[in-house]
């Protein structure tokens, strides 16, 4: 597997350096990616849960989504 790289742009000199990530940086990237995946999964689950709850409420009220919009307009 290719070692991940980092690009650093020095704003004072304009120099661009491309270097391999250190072991510590790789560990950090993996931790960040895991945390982001968890956050996205939680958001997706919440959105799905809300959609189900909305459909259930509309069914209970016996109205359509468009009719609910009219009520709230």
């Amino acid at each position, binding site marked *: 597997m290719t070692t991940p790289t*980092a690009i650093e742009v020095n704003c004072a000199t304009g120099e661009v350096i*491309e270097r391999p990530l250190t072991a510590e940086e790789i560990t950090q990237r993996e931790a960040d990616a895991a945390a*982001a995946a968890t956050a996205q999964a939680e958001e997706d689950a919440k959105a*799905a849960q809300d959609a189900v709850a909305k459909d259930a409420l509309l069914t209970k009220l016996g109205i359509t989504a468009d009719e609910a919009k009219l009520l709230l307009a």
Partner: protein
Amino acid sequence: MATTFTKIASVSVGVLGSSTISFTSIPSTYTDLCLKVSARTDAAGIGDYLYMSLNGNTSNNSYKQLQGSGSAASSSGGSGATNNTGVSTADGATATASTFGNAEIYIPNYAGSNAKSASGDGVSENNATAARADLWAYLNSGTSAITSISLAPGNGINFVQYTTAVLYGIKNS
């Protein structure tokens, strides 16, 4: 109100991709900073986050996010348990080929001695029903002037080729 908008530096990712994009030695001669990013990552899915760290801070980041997916709206927030915290949006690996997310990150008063806030807006580009539009509020409690900014993919490991980032400095007079 910004009266000048000056490009400080820019970078485009090469064929090998890159896990992070960093701007270092940022001059303190401006009032605000603005990052414009066109990004695509290797994350599975149509969209990915852009994570940001300021001055290499490893904690003290927090965020609030509003997201529309094309079929639902959601919100989230939290503190950065790890090095970086989300601040905007990029395309993921399964978005329409050769498309890139659009992001803008604005950092006011970056050279001051108060905590550093930033706002981010971003969209993932995808020629399908599902796509993402996000608004972010970002806070880092560090009080030092910002001299370095690092961006990384949220879910992915690498930014892919042709991802670009441009850093601008803005003066208020």
